[in-house]
């Protein structure tokens, strides 16, 4: 991305934040809060998720057989199945059905798959009047806008904007103001359009292979009307929507509303087995009696491939097919909350999982346009009811996008970016991806390098050439690294230690925030632990976050080479930076050869997790620095740390040391590694961060602590006082 395109990208994001940001933020944060409350009511939430995942894995594995089975079932029921290779194929078939019915009007209930096909435009060209009956979709149809959210398509529009739109389009007799007035107006208006519809089209949340049942999860009742009134029904569904049996719907029905909009269940879960055994309603013949089993009904199930069968063969994209379009990954995403689907979205889909969908059905180019919105914070992984590793899909697609780019003009930084990438991830990505090299140089030339980097001319060059926003203060490098300090210090290791630890010198602790490393050493030694700090390479987090998977893999291998012998000798590995804990216990499974990941998974710990374990096993907590009188601590846990379930350890130890701890419900600080430094995302990053800063201000704390380097930098930039890492507050002097 050039400096110019970064600027126009920044302007686009700013414009959307100004016009849609407030409505999107209010709605998505409301959904997200609702999700937490709703899933907490389920006793067997995790078991339901596991079961849902199992069903999807099995269904995608057996997909060709299930397609045959559902075809047989639908045909037994009296319907027709058409397998469409792509959007054009599907649209042709649907247009033919309409032509065969001599249809003037088709009514639709909400369907993202139909958005993927752009079937409305195709039918309009064939002189079929298409009416969206979902109120949100209808508003967008009137406004000629695209959905900003996969479940609640018009969340970016305020009530006032909708009122103005209706005013302009319909000039109603009475002024429409309240949500109720607007809803009743739409109900009446659409009711008239539904009366005369010839064909009804729905999507499908699920299709059961055993009975040919279409499950639709809705609240308005428009899908029921779309199916019940016309005598011809078309359902469009991606092939991945098939599950083996009716019973398999169970976990999904309990999870989908809760995960998405935070509803325990939506008003209507329709289990239609079309053509349905229910009388049609012919409003043109007012004397006709409503009775009978609907023998005059036709049904067409249009199953869409459009790239899905190829995704099934793609080891990294396959998981995308497990997605049930609940929108949890959108609502839980701090970036999405700020900008919505008009920034964080492609041609059809939006939110974290959209990268997989867009890459699979529309191609890499559209995925590339918004893929950088995913910072890998991982909050969506636990929110996803089928446990899709959404950040990984984003990373893989980023890598593929990088590989497509021209590697020319990269020579400028080749010396600074000795990565293993075969082609060009782009200058900005390579700069951040090779942060370790920068940090080494920065440290070697500190303090000169710090003064240089933050000087106006250098900041301008960095912004122009590499898109590093000049409004962000750059981190200050330490002349003496943490590992060097450790090697040269005069200290007698504890005799007869209870445990032996390698304190991993992550890049941030090693080159910049050496004090927190020292604090960790003091703490561990005070608790009776032998500590070593061997020179060890960066974890690979920085290149991975830029989609430079080859480079990340070579880093992971180098770390494994260094730490392997310590694991063998019975050392635990303790890590201060949460994003590196996440690497060791998560991504390394994908990056290391078989057998080398397990020691990392079993024996690496986040620093406060380890302290908690020591105390639980009898270490003396009084060795830690306790609160001096009433002290309120605002604690912001790191996003990945929360996903790993490690937040509680910091909180508990702080409380046991006498602090009053205030936490917040912000999913991510908005800095997220390099994201907040990139000039095209700077303002969005600040917007996300303001949500956190506001909650910290409200807590009115005496001290602010956080766990991640990014979070600390972001809080530092937004608040007056410099926050510290938890271990610095607790470490003995």
């Amino acid at each position: 991305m050039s400096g110019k395109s970064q600027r126009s990208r920044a302007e686009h994001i700013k414009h959307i934040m100004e016009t849609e940001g407030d409505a999107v933020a209010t709605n998505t944060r409301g959904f997200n809060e609702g999700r937490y409350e709703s899933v907490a009511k389920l006793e067997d939430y995790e078991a339901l998720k596991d079961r849902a995942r199992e069903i999807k894995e099995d269904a995608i594995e057996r997909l060709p057989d299930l397609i045959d089975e559902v075809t047989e079932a639908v045909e037994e029921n009296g319907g027709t199945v058409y397998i469409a290779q792509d959007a054009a194929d599907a649209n042709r078939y649907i247009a033919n059905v309409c032509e065969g019915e001599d249809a003037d009007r088709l009514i639709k209930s909400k369907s993202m798959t139909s958005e993927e096909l752009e079937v409305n435009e195709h039918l309009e060209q064939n002189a079929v009047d298409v009416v969206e009956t979902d109120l949100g979709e209808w508003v967008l149809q009137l406004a000629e806008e695209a959905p900003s959210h996969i479940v609640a398509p018009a969340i970016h529009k305020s009530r006032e904007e909708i009122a103005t739109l209706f005013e302009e389009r319909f000039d109603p007799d009475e002024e429409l103001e309240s949500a109720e007035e607007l809803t009743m107006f739409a109900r009446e208006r659409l009711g008239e359009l539904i009366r005369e519809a010839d064909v009804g089209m729905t999507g499908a949340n699920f299709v059961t292979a055993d009975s040919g049942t279409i499950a639709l999860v809705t609240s308005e009742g428009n899908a029921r009307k779309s199916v019940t009134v016309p005598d011809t029904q078309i359902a469009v569904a991606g092939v991945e929507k098939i599950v083996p049996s009716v019973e398999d719907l169970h976990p999904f029905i309990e999870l989908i509303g809760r995960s998405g909009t935070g509803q325990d269940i939506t008003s209507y879960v329709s289990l239609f087995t079309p053509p349905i055994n229910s009388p049609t309603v012919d409003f043109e013949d007012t004397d006709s009696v409503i009775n009978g089993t609907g023998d005059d009904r036709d049904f067409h199930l249009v199953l869409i491939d459009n790239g899905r069968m190829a995704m099934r063969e793609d080891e990294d994209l396959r998981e995308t097919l497990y997605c049930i379009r609940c929108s949890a990954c959108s609502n839980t995403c701090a970036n999405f909350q700020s900008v919505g689907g008009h920034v964080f979205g492609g041609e059809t889909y939006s939110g974290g999982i959209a990268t997989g969908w867009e890459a699979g059905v529309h191609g890499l180019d559209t995925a590339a346009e918004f893929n950088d919105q995913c910072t890998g914070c991982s909050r969506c992984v636990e929110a996803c009811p089928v446990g899709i590793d959404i950040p990984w899909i984003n990373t893989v697609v980023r890598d593929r996008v990088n590989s497509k780019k021209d590697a020319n003009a990269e020579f400028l930084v080749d010396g600074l970016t000795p990565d293993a990438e075969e082609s060009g991830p782009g200058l900005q990505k390579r700069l951040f991806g090779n942060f370790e090299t920068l940090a080494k140089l920065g440290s070697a030339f500190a303090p000169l390098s710090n003064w240089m980097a933050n000087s106006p001319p250098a900041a301008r060059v960095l912004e122009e050439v590499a898109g590093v926003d000049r409004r962000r203060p750059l981190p200050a490098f330490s002349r003496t690294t943490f590992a060097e300090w450790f090697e040269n210090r005069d200290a007698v290791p504890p005799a007869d230690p209870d445990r032996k630890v390698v304190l991993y010198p992550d890049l941030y602790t090693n080159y910049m925030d050496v004090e927190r490393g020292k604090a960790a050493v003091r703490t561990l030694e005070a608790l009776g632990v032998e500590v070593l700090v061997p020179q060890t390479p960066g974890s690979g987090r920085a290149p991975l976050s830029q989609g430079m998977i080859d480079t990340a893999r070579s880093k992971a291998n180098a770390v494994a080479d260094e730490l392997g012998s310590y694991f063998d000798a019975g050392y635990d590995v303790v890590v201060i930076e949460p994003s590196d804990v996440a690497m060791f216990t998560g991504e390394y499974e994908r990056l290391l050869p078989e057998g080398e990941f397990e020691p990392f998974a079993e024996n690496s710990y986040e620093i406060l997790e380890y302290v908690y374990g020591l105390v639980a096993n009898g270490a003396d907590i009084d060795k830690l620095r306790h609160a001096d009188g009433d002290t309120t601590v605002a604690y912001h846990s790191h996003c990945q740390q929360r996903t790993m379930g490690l937040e509680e350890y910091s909180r508990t130890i702080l409380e046991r040391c006498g602090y009053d701890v205030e936490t917040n419900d912000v999913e991510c600080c908005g800095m997220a590694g390099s994201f907040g430094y990139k000039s095209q995302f700077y303002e969005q990053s600040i917007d996300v961060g303001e949500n956190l800063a506001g909650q910290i201000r409200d807590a009115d704390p005496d001290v602010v602590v956080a766990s991640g380097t990014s979070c600390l930098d972001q809080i530092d930039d937004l608040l007056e006082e410099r926050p510290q890492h938890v271990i610095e507050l607790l470490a003995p002097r």
Partner: protein
Amino acid sequence: MAAQRTEPALFDQFERTVGAYDVGVQRVQPSAVRETIADLLSGPAMGTPIDIAGATLPEAVTTNPTTAELEAAKTGVTTASLAIADYGSVVLRATAEGSEPISLFNDLHVVVLRESDIVPDMAAAFEWFGEELRETRDSAIIATGPSATADMGALVQGAHGPKKVEVIVVA
């Protein structure tokens, strides 16, 4: 579904969960069904016959309505096949008597339900769905509260379907 458990605990739970959706619940003997429905009716009403011994529809409720009557109706009275206690849901099976349009094209939906048809949870409901849908290839709606939308800037009860739901549980 007569074989299901009929503990009063299930009714109590159902009453509590469905109450969260502003749905009124009354538990009556079969002989009182007619009067209970009559008291709830508002405007022209249509319905499907009640297949519960001793329970009948009031005369004011039209069965086998014409399309014109469906359009004019303000109340729809239908029978639920099942209810799910921990969700407050009723299961509305589409029948030849027009249960689906009658339960949908109205402002008030009155649901009549056998107490013995209340099952504890979604797992039990899906066991029933599995057998029934595979066997009969029928259709059914799991309905929880009135139709609703938040698309117009705030939650509104009554979108395309009923604005209000009342449940009569027949002991």
